[in-house]
């Protein structure tokens, strides 16, 4: 029941969304997963994404924006090709998470939620990413890097910069 013609998403995602809507007693429940999938595909939640999701769920765009703005993991501006997320939650903090973050800031020359001029990297300080036992940890796109040291971070960033890193979206 692909109700949307001219979807901005790929046919696979569109089909997935069509299915997602049917899973819940209330259509609206599919909103958060939809936003996440859309973000993975488009890179951020653009106005077009908001418009199409609102249409799919019979919501007002305002409703979508209300939810969207609530969650810090959802972006409304494009991130870099590699989105570096450094955890500074308690375990990582105790094991030097802030040093890693500061190192990344220094190395990439950008701050929290900023993107490098060439658009390759973006940096985010995030809450727990579930890697406490290997703290400090960070996540680049959906790829985990743990037991970090500043040296290791340099290597990881160089790997990505050279285009050799896994590019999981």
């Amino acid at each position, binding site marked *: 029941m692909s109700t949307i013609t001219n979807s901005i998403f790929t046919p696979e995602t569109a089909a997935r969304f069509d299915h997602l809507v049917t899973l819940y007693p209330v259509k609206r429940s599919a909103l958060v997963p939809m936003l996440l999938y859309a973000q993975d595909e488009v890179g951020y939640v653009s*106005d077009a994404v908001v418009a199409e999701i609102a249409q799919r769920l019979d919501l*007002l*765009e*305002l*409703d979508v*924006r*209300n939810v969207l*703005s*609530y969650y810090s993991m959802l972006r*409304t501006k494009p991130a870099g090709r590699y989105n570096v997320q450094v955890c500074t939650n308690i375990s990582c903090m105790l094991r030097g998470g802030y040093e890693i973050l500061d190192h990344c800031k220094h190395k990439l020359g950008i701050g929290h939620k900023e993107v490098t001029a060439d658009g390759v990297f973006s940096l985010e300080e995030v809450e727990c990413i579930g890697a406490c036992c290997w703290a400090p940890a960070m996540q680049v796109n959906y790829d985990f890097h743990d037991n970090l040291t500043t040296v290791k971070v340099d290597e990881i960033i160089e790997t990505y910069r050279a285009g050799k890193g896994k590019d999981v979206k």
Partner: protein
Amino acid sequence: MADVTFTVDGKQITAPAGTLLIDACKSAGIEIPAFCYYPGLSLQAACRMCVVRIEKMPKLATACTTTVAEGMVVATETPEITQARKATLQLLLGNHPLDCPVCDAGGECELQDMTFKYGAADSFYTEPKNHREEQNWSPVVYFDRPRCILCYRCVRMCGEGMDVFALGIQNRGSSAVIAPNIAPSLSPDNLAHLDCEQCGMCIDACPVGALTSGAYRYKTRPWEMNHVTTVCTHCGDGCKTTLGVRSTSDGAEIVRGDNRDKSGINGDFLCNKGRYAFDFANSQERITTPLVRQPNGDLKPVSWEEAFTVAGKKLRELRDTRGGKSIGVIGGNRLTNEEAYLLQKFARTVLGTNNVDHHRTADYVTFTQALAGQKGRTASWNDTKSYPAVLIVGGDPTNQAPGTAWNLRSDVRLNKARLYVANTSEIKLRRQARAFLQVAPFGYGALAGYLAGDASAASNAALDPTALGGFLEAVKGEEKLLILIGSELRGADLKRLIEFGLTIPGAKFALLSDYANSRGAADMGLLPDMLPGYTPVPTPGPFTEHNIPSEPGLDLLEIFDAAAAGNLSALYVVNSNPVARYGVDPAALKDTFVIVQEMFLTETAQLADIILPAANLYEKSGSVTNSYGDLQLVQKAGDRSGVRSDFEMIVRIADKMGADVKALVPFGKGLRADMGQSRGAQSGEADRHAVWLTANNLEPKLSPFDPWAILDEIQRLVPGYDLLRLQLLSGNDQHLEPAAAAATASRRDLVLPSGDGLFTSGTLGRFSPALNDVQRYQAGEPLIQIQTAAD
């Protein structure tokens, strides 16, 4: 529901089970403070101000979400509760700027009141407050984020109340904000804006000064104005609006319109026009001196005396030489009942003509005639708030009568009323409707026929004739049905629809019209064939004493036809703009002597030989009748030097014509009343005495310009206008049912709906800067960004 008895602060209270504790306490005179609670909206329990101690409950409970129960023991003011409320206020004030001296809400702010009561002005926070710039969401709505306490009243008011859903909450925690529906990224100027009905209900609901009105902001302070409650001059609902007035060098300027005490027939509601479109009264374009056309064609400012003398002399001369029947009189939809009555009486007794008409916006003649002999069949506006089932045929209340739409939405939401909508277009109220029938284009007549039992009309009645049966069954199944009829139905169609409705025993009817006193103009006999109270001209009944010509006169179009044919010697237009409305060729009036009483130089006024500057409905006293037949008091709020009320001008012209003013306005009657000799020394006593005299119709009317003298006559002569003076004077509405005689022969359909929407209001609307701004804004013109100063 059954009553339960419980104790609050040692006082025994009885209330129906299911009542919210906060409401039950309020009815018993115990105030529980609350920011987020708003009667009639869904519960939020966001502000924690209404906490009370209920025995046997482990913690303090919110009174706004607790329903009363038998034997409940509640304490509303204890040191514990005071402490809790104070802590709540401290949290709210953590980010609230203390800019009360500047804030528009200062003086009528709930947060300010509560801070005064519980004292929490000193903050324990050392962190700087979050500051954000003020935002201009629309020409009439401004948002100042730091003042917002996130009570969500505006969000619920806009969504549930107005069914617009233009406001939402974005972000979270202390950075949460109220956000309008046009995101900055979608707006040409990269600022957030509102796309909505611009009703201002969010501003009204806001307990603090976070949402402020573009029309009123930073102009004055609440205690500096006089607050005059009167009736809105715009649509036919007749909402009570409170005008904030301050005196200026040339009169009294209206600076604010709002629904201050919510005591009117409109309850909580007021729309864009009632709230902002009072500013035509302050327009610089108003005419403030009488103008008389000179032989060379110029309009020359003259004194009042001269203008009246010329008008009276000329009218008398034309009446005496060419006969009263050569004179036409056109009244307005925004005159008070007294003025409308006086105008027709002037035309019929002084000018001796029945050529009286007004711009008809609904067929009230057929409406009352179809209900002749019935009692209790006309609906009051109050019925739309509570009737269990409502059928709307034609019309679009959301745009034409926003207050009616509000009532219907509330009725559906709060009372689970069943709403049936039959319309040619998909009007917004169909969203609340249990059943929506899309009527075929021009199919209202066929629909009325079908409902009345003519099955053959089905094919022309609805786009989908198969839907008709189910719709009819559902409607017929209702025991108590309110039938709201749009102005599309007239004459025989209207009659048939009402005949169908009369087969439902509990049915009541209302016919929607367009302006503040459209109904009153018809009731008061501004019609060529009907005297006041729909008394046919040939059988004048109570009006026999006036010696009215026995033949019906020319209607509005015939008057202009006569003018074009050179048969109209004079035309007297009071507060109406028929030339623009009916597209009259200006050349038609070249041989006619035209007197126009107007506020502005309208198309009609431009053709006039004499222009008399008139006061508007906000500048005079009297009464008006809304679409439903509810009579309300109009009080003088604004004032403009150089204008006079239509009432006074009619009397003056009659006087200059040599008419017996005492016969026209029966003043000087009521002198049997006590003139003060029995009054006590205290003025308070004298005031009470005056109220009593007025209520008993005994007050002296010493002036021929006193509308109450005419109200006496209306009360005495007009069938159905047996009103209660005390009810009127105390600012309450009362429902009237003018009883018509049975139907007369078929009449020409002259109803011309105004086609006004939310942001237009006939000729008047063109002169309201607020309405023009909103129209431009809604049409998508780039906003005139008023740069607001940062603080």
